[in-house]
């Protein structure tokens, strides 16, 4: 009789228990997958941030505008390669509560500062020539069911046009592909000129400035130079690396994110405890049987292998199924929660760590009863009956 056959028979003996244990392992790993997806969303953009990009904003708060002249004054600084400015349009499609990132900018500079965006060359040319043209991320196109060439009225929660109208006309001319898993494709860009000339107030002011520098090693020096240039003026600035800026934004949510994650981690380990106990218990109950097997000549090693194999089977199967179901759930939640958690995704890293944890779970829950089974004194065990 080979070991695999024995393991299969043992697992199938108490079907209800095996199934229940398997289910609780699955649930634990679904939670694990969700937890990691949340964590990934929380760190949204950090991995996409370029080390060679700096962000300059008003020192008091980024909703305070900067004067347009700052763009030229920053581009005169040594080591600055490209420069672009952005504003916040406060755009919404139909529901004013669902705002998204629509950034008025000099579109010509966009690809210099963000060379990673992939845009069809023909669409790009068309975009540069269309005053009301929009460049939209592909995920955003899919989420809203938009099409190239479509005319689109978008509302602004902040800026009316000079005629008092809060709705602006646009035409979707081009789409772009980001480098992430779509989390950087939930935005859109428009011509600053259209925005600036048509808006009722705020002319020639801009929101923030993104600078691409030649050598990331100089980023601290250039950061200082920029802020010193405007020190003691009526509009002082605060410059940080793109990574620092995004990390700072995530930190605005504060300890809540961390706390939810800490709670989830506790949950995961509680569930592992529950399922681990069930596995260990099922071996404990078979003490007699193991004693009989040893009596008829099974070696100590083989007994350990049998017990271990059984728990590894359960843990790995549960882990795999849990991760798979987590993947499906995340896929569904992704679209539904795009507004709050654009970065919800399952990374290969999650799968790897998940499988390692499943392996560990199998080893720990198998080894303890396994070793006990190995040390089992046959005479004593049989006498207990």
């Amino acid at each position: 009789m080979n070991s695999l056959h024995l393991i299969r028979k043992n697992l199938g003996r108490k079907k209800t228990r095996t199934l229940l244990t398997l289910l609780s392992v699955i649930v634990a790993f679904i939670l694990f997958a969700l937890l990691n997806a949340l964590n990934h969303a929380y760190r949204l953009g950090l991995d996409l941030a370029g080390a060679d990009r700096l962000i300059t904003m008003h020192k008091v708060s980024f909703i305070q505008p900067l004067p347009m002249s700052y763009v030229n004054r920053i581009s005169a600084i040594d080591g600055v390669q490209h420069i672009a400015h952005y504003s916040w349009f406060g755009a919404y499609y139909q529901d004013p509560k669902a705002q998204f990132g629509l950034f008025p900018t000099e579109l010509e500079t966009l690809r210099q500062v963000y060379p990673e965006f992939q845009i069809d060359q023909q669409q790009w040319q068309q975009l540069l020539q269309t005053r009301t043209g929009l460049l939209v991320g592909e995920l955003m196109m899919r989420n809203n069911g938009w099409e190239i060439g479509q005319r689109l009225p978008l509302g602004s929660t902040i800026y009316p046009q000079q005629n008092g109208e809060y709705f602006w006309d646009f035409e979707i001319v081009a789409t772009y592909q980001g480098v992430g898993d779509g989390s950087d494709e939930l935005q859109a860009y428009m011509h600053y000129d259209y925005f600036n000339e048509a808006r009722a107030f705020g002319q020639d002011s801009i929101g923030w400035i993104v600078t691409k520098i030649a050598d990331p090693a100089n980023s601290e020096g250039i950061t200082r130079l920029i802020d010193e240039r405007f020190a003691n003026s009526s509009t002082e600035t605060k410059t940080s690396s793109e990574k620092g800026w995004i990390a700072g934004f995530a930190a605005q949510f504060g300890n809540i994110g961390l706390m939810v994650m800490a709670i989830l981690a506790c949950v995961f380990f509680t569930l592992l405890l529950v399922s681990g106990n069930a596995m260990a218990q099922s071996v404990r109950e078979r003490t007699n049987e193991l004693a009989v097997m040893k009596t008829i000549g099974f070696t100590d090693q083989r007994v350990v292998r049998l017990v271990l194999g059984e728990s590894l089977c359960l843990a790995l199967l549960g882990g795999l199924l849990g991760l798979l179901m987590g993947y499906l759930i995340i896929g569904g939640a992704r679209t539904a929660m795009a507004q709050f958690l654009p970065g919800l995704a399952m990374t290969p890293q999650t799968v790897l760590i998940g499988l390692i944890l499943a392996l560990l779970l199998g080893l720990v829950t198998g080894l303890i009863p396994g070793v006990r089974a190995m040390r089992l004194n046959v005479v004593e065990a049989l006498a207990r009956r």
Partner: protein
Amino acid sequence: MGQVFEITMQNLRSISQRLGSSIVLVVGVAGVVAVLVAVLSIARGFERTLSVVGSEDNVVVLRSGASSELNSGLSGEQADIIQQAPGLLQVNGQPLASAELYTMVDLRKKTTGTTANVPMRGISPNGVALRDGFQLLDGRMFEPGRKELIVGRGALDQFDDLVVGTTLALGQERWDVVGSFSGQGGSIESELWADAAVVQGAFRRGNNYASVYARLSYIDALAEFKDVLTADPRLSVTVEREAEFFAEQSGALSGFVSGIGYVIAILMALGAIFGALNTMYSAVSDRTREIATLRALGFSRFAIVVSVLVEAMLLALLGGLLGAGIAYVLFNGFTVSTLNFTSFTQVVFDFAITRDLLLQGVLLALLIGLFGGLTPALRAARMPIATALRT
């Protein structure tokens, strides 16, 4: 009945022999309940903070289409028209109303060391009278026309550089922090307050405001007030009761957090039910012969079922109480500050573990016990006596 009681007591007395798996059941359920209660307390505390200030008598007027005070804008002239509209409470011949400005400043959060959007409000002289819960805690009120500000208790607690009696530098502007205030735990405690006219100057807003807060002359005067404003061609505004306005401002975040809370709790509860089922199945199979003997002696199936169910539910209840207790001790009143999606500014609030949350937790525990105990109980009752005795 006596039978039921006897076997149940017998079961409970023998729990000590199955201590390991019973503890796992208790711990599992405690975990589920603690997490449910803790996560929901975040949402509950947040809602409470935003609802405390909301009065039914007060109205908030914003530019129509604005989703929050931050992106609303009213000219000084429009603000005057709104304050002169009928339906508002008159005190000494003047409407009880305040045209306000809402912006934000970057301050360093103590817990993370990074900067955060702290709300700053410019209020008109009636601003304080409109907030019933307002109470000056320390120092004095700012003087109109001077670059002075007072700080909410929550902001004082959560952000750096806010000390009564010192000067706060915002860019080139120097503000004297002259006092601190509380507001019954409401969201105004997260804010910095100064004179509206001074804020207009310092933030270069011209003669513009974000909102008008006003008190109605009586609770049903809203319709009259609203009709006049809507009919006025010089205005394009939305009028809401303050309570509704704040409920809307908290909706997105608290809905999101409760959503996560319930999803996690449901998943965990499933896990805990599987754990409970395992525990109870093995409890029953350990006692196969004992139960068969009882049945042979004439104890009814019903008594057996009840005894197993009671054991499962008592263990789960113990876990539930434990979990709720742990959550209460660890989290109740825990103060945090987070970014409210809607207003885009920081809100300081306390976790609130309310009685109904504790109740929800304990109910969930009982449900887990019920589902975890039911099928094992039925199996125990259905066992054929003769076969069971032979095992």
